[in-house]
């Protein structure tokens, strides 16, 4: 079984105030199969090096955006990254198939509670719905899309001691992605990846007991 390499592109414009994202990123740095990039540290002037970023994408099988949700989307540098790196001829369009077959995931923190992110709540939509542009970007570039791994109520996560559980979900996710043991088709039916992981029939319990082969689950994006 092939073991996947993971690229974590992390964006947090004020890391010194971070309570949740900093430890999440720190943990990602611990894995030798993960390349963890602090985008704001590498490009403090948003002067993204297109060649270097495209090389990174080519060298990895799984691409993760890690960020705190800013106005229902990514912080500015990740949008800049998409605008610059996902070029015509590289990520889409004529001969633009370099990302085909990779897996894409957003690992996010949301200030609002899970109740806020649903119809009738403050934010009216689920995170899955709000991230449709990212989902469609993944589809457009031929990547498998996973529902976002989300820490809700992130402002109080540390105080309420909810962070350790989330960090556990995060390492499980990285391990499972590395081993190719996430059932992408099944995961697609959940709103967040956390729901998939904690689902009785799939996820954490099953991960350690039985190995799920990803080979027959390959999905083809037809546009």
């Amino acid at each position, binding site marked *: 079984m092939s073991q996947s390499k993971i690229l974590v592109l992390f964006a947090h414009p004020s890391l010194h105030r971070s309570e949740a994202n900093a430890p999440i990123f720190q943990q990602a740095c611990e894995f030798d199969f993960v390349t963890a990039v602090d985008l704001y540290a590498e490009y403090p*002037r948003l*002067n993204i090096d297109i060649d270097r970023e495209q090389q990174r994408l080519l060298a990895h099988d799984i691409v993760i955006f890690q960020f705190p949700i800013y106005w229902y989307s990514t912080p500015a540098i990740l949008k800049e990254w998409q605008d610059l790196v996902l*070029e015509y001829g590289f990520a889409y*369009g004529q001969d633009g198939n370099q990302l085909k077959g990779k897996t894409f995931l957003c690992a996010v923190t949301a200030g609002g509670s899970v109740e806020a992110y649903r119809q009738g709540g403050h934010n009216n939509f689920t995170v899955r719905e709000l991230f449709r542009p990212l989902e469609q970007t993944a589809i457009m570039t031929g990547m498998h899309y996973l529902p976002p791994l989300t820490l809700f109520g992130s402002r109080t996560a540390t105080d309420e001691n909810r962070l350790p559980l989330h960090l556990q979900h995060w390492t499980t996710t990285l391990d499972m992605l590395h081993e190719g043991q996430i059932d992408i088709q099944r995961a697609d039916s959940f709103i967040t990846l956390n729901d998939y992981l904690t689902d009785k029939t799939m996820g954490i319990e099953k991960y350690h007991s039985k190995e799920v082969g990803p080979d027959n689950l390959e999905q083809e994006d037809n546009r």
Partner: protein
Amino acid sequence: MTGYFVQAFIYLIAAVIAVPLAKKFGLGSVLGYLIAGVIIGPVTGLVGKETVTIQHFAEFGVVMMLFLVGLELEPKMLWQMRHRLLGLGGLQVALTTGLITIIAMVFGQPWQTALAIGLIFSLSSTAIVLQTFNEKGLSKTQGGQNAFSVLLMQDIAVIPMLAFIPMLALPEIADAAASLKEASEHHQELSLVSGLPSWAYALAILASIVGVIVTGHYLSRPLFHYVASSHLREIFVATALMLVVGIAALMSLVGLSPALGTFLAGVVLANSEFKHELESNIEPFKGLLLGLFFITVGAGINFSIFADNLVVILGLTLLVMLSKAAILWLLAMIFKINNSDRWLFALSLAQAGEFGFVLLSFTMAQHVIAPDVAAILQLVVALSMFLTPVLFIAFDKIILPRYRDAINQMEFDDIDDCGTVIIAGAGRFGQIVNRLLVANGIKTVMLDHEATQIENMRRIEIKSYFGDATRPDLLHTAGIDDALMFVVAIDNIDNSVALTHHIKKSHPKLTVLSRSFDKGHSYALRQAGADFTINETYHSALELGAEVMRKAGLHPFFVEHKKTLFAQVEQDASDDLYQKWSNSEEEQYGSDYQKLFIRLEQAIKSAMGRDRLDKHSASERGWTPPPKGYDKKL
């Protein structure tokens, strides 16, 4: 005359051989001097009775040491540390003095002598402990910092002790002023106050203390400024010595401790811009005199006493160290110093210190302690100091492994913990660097060799110091050994290269960032080892060029992009240019270099021009729209 030369040579060669060896074996310099003294004194008999005379002279090193201690103590810092100093340090001195006094009385000493012994053994060795902390990187630990507070309090406590001990000599302790006066009469040849009534005596003391403070505060600055403007190094040294010697003389004349006077002067001058310069000038004298002092102590050790009283001395040493460690342990518990730090705190300060020797010779002179008792106690002090490295080794090998895990969990560094940044050069460049850093709470020490420049900076309340940054001893007192980074912003091209070279050689791990005037200078700095160089005009010229482009009607965002690209191409080429420059020994700007430079200009031009051909160009690569009609093919 010949005799003096021979003797001086014997002292010096003993120190030169023994001290580096002692340091190499982790014993520290104080023990090195003691060993040197033991070898030239009791072991080989090269020196004899004159050591006593020399010792009195060498005691002046202690006076200088207290001046330097004072210089390091800004009143503000003292105030911030007051709880640790008075609480932890004060309790340590008081409790240890009490316990040792009781022990001494149990051994049959009269209470006056017992109290003097208590005071002597309440002190620990600042020289050994701080040096070992530095060597082992323990200064920033909780145990290390608390130990520092205690040592500082002890150093300060020496001053009242020196004033207090003469009173113990008298059987009936009358009022302090009278006994002080008598004590001063007792050992001073010269005195201004010997015939005065006690009210006038008190007035004279007050006047001289106020005199020291006022002189230090108001007169020293114009004096140093005047001397500094002469640019004669040795005159500045002479002035510094004159200041210390003068204050010591004044204090002796009115019957006060010279150490007290110079300590006060040091505190008064702690905020002065000449602080580092003064320190670097006094430091070698202090070091040599203190070294001489320890050699004479070593030379004065009587081996027959040691042999005769072997069991007593060993027993007393263990008793003293156990008592001290027990009290330190107790205090550490009260002040919530935990785990390995508590061990470090208790073990590191368990010895007696160099001030013990000073106070011992002082108490003997004051007839507080009988010479035979003092001889034994001196050996106890020395032995406890000899044992200190053993305790540190025990801490490293036995205690620390047990707490390793706990320590690992606490290793997140505070911003507070980062050291200072030294900025050499307070001119137009260094100033801006300094302002940015200070505004962000990064500690800086700014140095400049122009006294007027420093005065201007001080006038607008920017902390900076007078001193020639190209001198190694000044860099040492400015704190280069703990510095986080070093910024070279001095305006002499040759000196800046030499300074960069020197720092990288003496402190290879220190990051050096240098300002260059042009390409050639930046290459020379790079060759000298600078980790980062920047041309002082490059970025402002780019900004101005960009402003021209904007004024010419180009879109600001487009201009920004072109500017970044220009800098990028230039950056990429600079390594090549540097290689060519450093390889061509004779002709550094020879034809090879010129060719390369022309190629760089072409690279920049082509990078800039490419987008006009409407391809995927380097400059316009970002945000290039897909080709027209691309969506039909998706």
